[in-house]
């Protein structure tokens, strides 16, 4: 198992603050194999919450309702595809329906690896929040 607090060796952090900031942006792309991004967490949680009813439309509604932020269909599906490629999610196709103009739905389900990643992220945040008080 990967320890979330030790960055993988392939990622080098610069000592100079400005360069470090730039590196952080750049590395966040590389690191995405090991960490869940914020939006990825949100999407995984939404799928988890919806259970058997998790396909594109309700996932979006769930996120928009709970997070009060707009989610575009392009962003949602690129994230879902990425999560599926990491085997955190799996998906299957249902039968076509008339209300969708004869097209089928793609349902998503959380895989054990996805549950584990969510757990990791949660415990990381809990450790970080421990003893912190705002204002």
């Amino acid at each position, binding site marked *: 198992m990967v320890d979330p607090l030790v960055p993988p060796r392939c990622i080098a952090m610069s000592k100079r603050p400005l360069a470090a900031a730039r590196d952080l942006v750049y590395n966040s792309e590389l690191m995405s194999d090991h960490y869940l991004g914020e939006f990825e967490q949100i999407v995984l949680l939404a799928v988890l919450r919806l259970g058997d009813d998790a396909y*594109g439309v309700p996932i979006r509604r769930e996120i928009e309702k709970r997070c009060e932020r707009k989610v*575009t*269909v*392009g*962003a949602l*599906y690129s994230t879902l*595809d990425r999560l599926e490629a990491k085997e955190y999610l799996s998906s299957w196709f249902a039968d076509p329906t008339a*209300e*969708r103009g004869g097209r089928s739905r793609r349902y998503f389900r959380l895989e054990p690896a996805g549950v584990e990643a969510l757990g990791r992220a949660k415990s990381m945040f809990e450790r970080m929040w421990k003893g912190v008080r705002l204002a």
Partner: protein
Amino acid sequence: MAELLLRRLVPGRAGEIIAGDLREEFEARGGGRIWYWGEVLSCVAVRLSPHRLTAPDLRQDLHYAVRVLRRNPGYALTAMVCLALGIGVNSTVFSMVNELFWQPLPLPHSGRLATVGRESDGMACSYRDYLEFRQRASAPAGSLFSGLVAYNDMRVAIDSGGMSHIVGADAVTSNFADVMEMPAQIGRWFRPEDDRLGSDPVAVIGDGAWGRLFGRSPDVIGQRVRIGTQRYRIIGVASPGFVGMSPPHMVEIWMPLASQPDVRDLLANPGEWERPLVQMIGRLADGRRTRDVEAGMRALDALIRHDFPRDNAPAGAVTVALATGASRPDVRRVAAPMAALLLSVTAVVLLIACVNVANLILSRSAVRRHEMAVRRALGAGPWRLARQTLAEGMVLGAGGVVLGLAVGYWSGRLMARSLPGFPHGGMLALRLDPDWRVVAYAAAAGLASAVLFTLAPAMDAVRSNAGVSRRMRQRDVYVVAQVGLSLVLLIAATLLVRALGHALEVDPGFAMAGRLEARLSVSEPEYTADTGRLYLDRVLGSVRAMRDVQSATISQNTPLSITAARCAAPDASTRPRRAGSDIVAAGYFDTLGIPIVRGRPFAALDRQGAPEVVMVNETFARRYWPGKDPIGQSVWLGCDVKESRTVAQVVGVARDAKYASLDELPQPFVYRSLAQDWAGSMTLIVHTAGRPEKFTAALRATLTALDPNLRVYEIETLEACASGSLFQVRWQAALLAVFGGLAMVLAAVGLYGVVAYAVAQQTRELGIRMAIGAQRADLLWMVLGRGLRLTAVGIGIGLLLSAAATRLLGGLLYGMSPLDPVSFSAATLAWTVVAMLASYMPARRAMKVDPVVALRWE
């Protein structure tokens, strides 16, 4: 259209799912077109996201560029609209070229469909060869194709609502729909039993014909209609959008090959291996590539020829190519130069648009001097600044591409609807739907133009000390280039338009005024040659008796669309050569006003049983009997040297005329007498005293009164036929005129911008001049003079360029000189007027300058 874009960008199942989601939410929201577009564009943005493609530095540049442009929406929008116009016309023309050369057929898995042809451009093989090929090459016994279809393109007359309509048709084998994997919209496609000898003739009609001729009524299934010489039962309607396998030629009727008379004859006569010839299209077997299949088919071809030897086997090796674009090589050959011309013209339009945007960026970089200075002071190197300009160009280019695709989509629609029609309208259809190739082309054009129009400003940013005057000079150069380039297009368009007029004045060799033609079908089973001739005599009799009719005659073909040819030789041993040919009744030469230069025209004594006679034209006489008297010479008609040929005596020589088109060279021509030759479809030509258009209804009434079953189609004046034969040059003239006009507008905007900018820069100077006593008229001329000087230089360069470029139009000018002074001066004059207007508007503003305000300026 949004959905179309989505489906093109996100192919396959993923696109389906997203489209389904959007549909569901669209319904739930109860509409929201803008929302829908936003969602689709979000997919585009994710697909093309800089996150995926670029390093973080460039990403910053792009973000910054977007912010800058968002703060200056007017500037951004102007630049994008300029680009969109340029990219739009490019993508429209490209989608036309795409359709003709690369687009696969609108069928499932059409990437696996391949046409089988011959290197000689001829038909693939005979019908019996096809049966052998099918058995040996396609499943289940063969392994090259999973299915192989034979078909024949033809034009047939279909009866509906008391009229005959000429439409494109394909006679196909019964496995057609299975191989094409195409279901019928209603009814069914052919079954193997439809291929059998003596089966009930059945037909499937296209979606277009179903709407046009049968009002989309489902009762059409089971109806019997007359198609060509037989009555067919309609059994199905093809799926919408499918217009046959040789676009842009539109096919609207499919019949089983076995229902065609020549195939029926063949099936009854097992010894025939040479005829009829068919074309082939097949679906490649899984895992097979065209190259393997071609090698396999060549081997099979050799085997079949060895097993079934014959004298006249199709020439050339077998070719197998994926079925994309216009599958007919002759269509490709005709279209290629036209495509090249149009693509280069639209490239010039885009270039002009780019120059406009470059001009805009330059004038903005003057405004942004401070900003640049600050960034340089903060340590930004010159290349960093240049890259920033480039990133801005990219963003503008991307916006231009998106807008341009929308412009291209709509202008394609508009073009398909409003361009001058093709001859035999409705026989050709262009599908101008954008696919990934069009999008890729537009994107490439956008990228190239982004680099192009930011190059100069970026260089400018690199050279830190570029002053105002330098920029001014650069802008002047741009305007001169724009004027020059757009003048080239304008001159080319004017030349083509004038050539069109010129062509209509070409002497066709026969009289057109007051003449009307009507196509009649006098074919089996209603008429044989003998009853047909009797019937046509009656037609001629009653038409001649009509009021206002001066004369009437019959011929097989309509003048200026005679493409029929037959083989002719002056004696039995000479190898026959092809000569144009028509069958005409007595009185033909009188009615059309074609002078007889020697001998006599056909007369009553040339009847059946009498010695066979022909008439020839002057070119024919010159070719075969130079310096001799052609009257009384023999002509051997027929291509096949072994078969019995007709020998006929020349009784007269007619003056040369134009036969197939107005721009053809003189060609040898043979006339046969209607009394001694026959064809099932004839043209009635009537010379009326009044206006022929008004005569149409009366003529139709007379003809139907004579025989209600008579099938008449295409009643048209000869003048309309003649102008129809000029469709190619008409098309090109119309397109070039549009593009030339667009180029001129873009260039005029550029000129206006430059002069207006100069006025803004010179406000102070103008104020001082006015304060020390300059008259307003002097100022007007000062400003106007600047615009006109630039225009004059541009026109000079444009004239030189045009002189070189118009040579390329040589073949389309109907003998007019490519340096036609009228076209050159008219276009030049037009540009001068436009330039006056474009510089007058800023000049008037200069006149209104208040010296007091001007002196306080800055």
